[in-house]
């Protein structure tokens, strides 16, 4: 019979959380700090005895370090690791056979498989010299080889082992900006993007910039992902909580935020920013667009920086909710660079890719003055750059291979209805006059003419629409959605190239 550790753990966590809230007091830390500043008298070079106890003890550590807490990997996890060891050395020592780590969003440690295409590209970028060998084509898919070449061409000297630009490789930022634009429908500037070792360092950077002293406050949702409380504590600021409403599915009410803002101001706190986690961690709620608009309006009015943690943007599980980025919402309200200061965080650790161990992510920074931007760059430059593999992965995540349907819709003169059922796509193609004339000259129906040329150029087999019947003067072809997932990118690439050449040749 198994008893899950987490059941006990949840109670334990609640109790320890409450204990933490009660016991954390800066005065406690203050007195320890004061008692440890021992001023050392002038040393005598002949005396060999040290003048006081070791320099670095818990009592003399930076009190901000002592103050901060991070429950996700706190005490419970240490106990779990011990229990795991006990199970290994002494099977049957507990009433359960295994430890189930449900404490952390770490999908691949629990069996989720990485996306093959991404790993192929990363492997090739890690070892580019094999791209020159023909045998490599037997091991890697054609589209991953192509994508790897594309990426390597954006890296000076194809040197994936070199420090890059401190904001990240320019070409990869271009890709990410394009991906943001495709997602939101509003332009993104690659110079606004800072690639980081996961989203967390980017959050720390912003806290460092925003917090001057404990008189600076950051509004955080309660419950929140404890990175925020830890980071604020580390940087010596004050967390100003606003409570999400559990009764309404963890709803975010701007009236509540306003209330907390005013209360903080009354205490002499200058509130600098508002953190919103959407989709929410730990709550899992997805904000409604009108809610987001209210938040944007609020931040604009109160002069707050909006820190939008959007790392779960690809994790939305209910059909009635959709992810909208705060950038998109702001821009669709007509608010630009001059209206709202917004930092959007994204990561490769979540979504369907779950690449936690790679430490890839970025922040998109908009609505700040040039001098502030310079300072952000400066801070980024002290760490030189984030890891290159993570940078590549971030660009892949923001520009994944397209579905067939997306691909068709992106081609000149082709429109494609969504496949709601069955197994087919039936895109419509506007064939230019020249092509129709060329088909007639070959005594072929125009859509068959297209399909035949496509087959001869690419090996892709479609069925001309005339085989199914269509409104006279319109042309279609039928394509199944059955090819293996890993073959689709190659199909899309070849089809796109063929279509471009076809249109170049026959365009009116």
């Amino acid at each position, binding site marked *: 019979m198994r008893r899950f550790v987490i059941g006990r753990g949840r109670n334990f966590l609640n109790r320890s959380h409450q204990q933490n809230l009660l016991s954390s007091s800066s005065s406690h830390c203050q007195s320890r700090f004061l008692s440890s*500043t021992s*001023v050392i008298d*002038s*040393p005598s070079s002949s005396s*060999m005895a*040290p003048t006081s106890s070791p*320099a*670095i*003890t818990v009592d003399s*550590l*930076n*009190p901000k*370090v002592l103050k*901060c807490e*991070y429950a996700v990997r*706190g005490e419970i996890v240490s106990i779990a690791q011990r229990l795991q060891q006990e199970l290994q050395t002494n099977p049957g020592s507990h009433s359960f056979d295994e430890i189930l780590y449900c404490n*952390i969003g770490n*999908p*691949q440690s629990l069996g989720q498989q*990485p996306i093959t295409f991404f*790993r192929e590209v*990363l*492997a090739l970028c890690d070892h580019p010299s*094999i791209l020159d060998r023909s045998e490599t084509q037997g*091991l890697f898919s054609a589209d991953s080889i192509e994508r790897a070449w594309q990426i390597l061409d954006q890296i000076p*000297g194809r040197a*994936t*082992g*070199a*420090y890059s630009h401190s904001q990240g490789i320019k070409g990869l930022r271009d890709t990410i900006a394009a991906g943001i634009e495709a997602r939101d429908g509003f332009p993104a500037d690659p110079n606004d993007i800072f690639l980081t*070792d*996961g989203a967390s360092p980017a959050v720390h950077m912003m806290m*460092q*910039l*925003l*917090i*001057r002293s404990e008189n600076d406050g950051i509004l955080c949702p309660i419950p929140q992902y404890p990175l925020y409380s*830890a980071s604020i504590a*580390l940087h010596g600021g004050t967390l100003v909580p606003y409570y999400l409403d559990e009764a309404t599915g963890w709803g975010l009410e701007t009236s509540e935020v306003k209330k907390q803002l005013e209360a903080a101001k009354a205490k002499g706190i200058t509130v600098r*920013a508002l953190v919103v986690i959407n989709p929410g961690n730990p709550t899992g709620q997805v904000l409604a667009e009108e809610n987001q608009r209210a938040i944007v309006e609020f931040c604009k*009015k*109160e*002069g*707050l920086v909006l820190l939008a943690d959007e790392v779960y943007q690809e994790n939305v599980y209910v059909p009635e909710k959709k992810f909208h980025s705060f950038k998109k919402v702001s821009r669709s309200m007509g608010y630009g660079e001059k*209206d709202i200061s917004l930092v959007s965080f994204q990561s490769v650790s979540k979504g369907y890719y*779950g*690449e936690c*161990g790679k*430490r890839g992510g970025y922040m998109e920074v908009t609505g*700040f*003055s040039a*001098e*502030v931007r310079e*300072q952000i760059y400066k801070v980024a430059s*002290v*760490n*030189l*750059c984030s*890891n*290159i593999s993570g940078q590549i992965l971030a660009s892949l995540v923001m520009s994944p291979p397209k579905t067939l349907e997306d691909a068709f819709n992106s081609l000149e003169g082709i429109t494609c209805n969504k496949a709601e059922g069955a197994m087919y796509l039936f895109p419509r193609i506007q064939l230019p006059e020249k092509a129709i004339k060329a088909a007639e000259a070959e005594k072929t129906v125009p859509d068959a003419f297209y399909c035949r040329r496509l087959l001869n150029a690419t090996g892709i087999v479609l069925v001309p629409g005339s085989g199914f019947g269509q409104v006279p003067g319109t042309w279609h072809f039928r394509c199944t959605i059955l090819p293996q997932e890993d073959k689709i990118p190659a199909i899309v690439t070849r089809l796109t190239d063929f279509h471009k050449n076809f249109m170049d040749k026959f365009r009116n």
Partner: protein
Amino acid sequence: MAPKALDYESMNENVKKVQYAVRGELYLRASELQKEGKKIIFTNVGNPHALGQRPLTFPRQVVALCQAPFLLDDPNVGIVFPADAIARAKHYLSLTSGGLGAYSDSRGIPGVRKEVAEFIERRDGYPSDPELIFLTDGASKGVMQTLNCVIRGEGDGVVLLFHTTWKRQQIGVLIINDLQQSVAQARSKGITVRAMVIINPGNPTGQCLSEANLREILRFCYQENLVLLGDEVYQQNIYQDERPFVSSKKVLMDMGLPFSKEVQLVSFHTVSKGYWGECGQRGGYFEMTNIPPKTVDEIYKIASIALSPNVPAQIFMGLMVNPLKPGDISYEQFVRESKGILESLRRRARMMTDGFNSCRNVVCNFTEGAMYSFPQIRLPPKAIEAAKRAGKVPDVFYCLRLLEATGISTVPGSGFGQKEGIFHLRTTILPAEEDMPAIMESFKKFNDEFMEQYEDYRGYSRM
């Protein structure tokens, strides 16, 4: 509309105070010029692969296989990857808790930390505890974390061992005198001196500290109750045989009681330097000695907020500390590649030093280690005046002129700290060997013309 929450005035002052010259004014100007089409030789940062150094083959093979473990099941994998790379990939994957895509232990994969401990033990001859070794996203992150723990506020001071043009025999005494003076001065201003940083081999000076030097430094830390931060990232980059690398830990342990149990030490290493040069991976570690368990717990807590260091770099670290052995299939190639790089670095160190010493008003110590050359540029008074007029620090002025004239992008000595009135620049010894002669010639031409332009010839007849 309410004023913006974050503008330059309302920013954290500490951020404004930060300077990082390596990617500062000179680098930004060089990047601008590069965009305009000028050929730039970036010698501002120790970034070997950016200057043509090839990555070592074996580690790249192993990590590529770890990235794409499905390859291991492919019957054709042996055609492209050697058997020992395949075996190593399997070994490292078995040490992870779900492959490269899972957060590891916040301190790093236990199996890799064990390999690091074994490396340290082999190198120093003293046991090393994997529990006191934390892997980090580059050594820099480890340094930041440690300083963050040590520095409570602006009342805390950290001693940095500055380079000076020491005469070799006098070093021991000179260092300690200088240090004692600095510490006393700081204390008289009410600063609590908490830690000392040494970089060995030195950056930017390249000087390798002798065992005697290290003993003096450790004794000093013991007396003055300072934690020693030993940045040893260049330990593989040694270009002379008189002073091989010896770690601070080894010297400390050799000193025996009470030092070996009392002096607190944090040592840093990386995959970015040496002959590996894998800067872009961001892989490093620090080892703690004589740090109390509760403090280690706090440092672990801080590490856990970042969840884990990146896993691919941890594997690079494992491979670096646990190298191939004679008999391994890839051993010969590995040794050939490594030796090739190290021997070339040694030659380039010599070429650069000699090249600088042949220039007017330039004096350059030999690069004993690390990756840099740090020539002293004796700027004539007229040049210093011209710099003032241009609103620039004199060595910045010189380096900007050098950049505009030759495309060589260096870091002015003021970015590293130097004695008042003495100017240097730092360049790396990393440009390709075949490019070196042309680069040194280009520098000499610029420098000698610059000196000609600014030297005062009043009262001297020109030949």
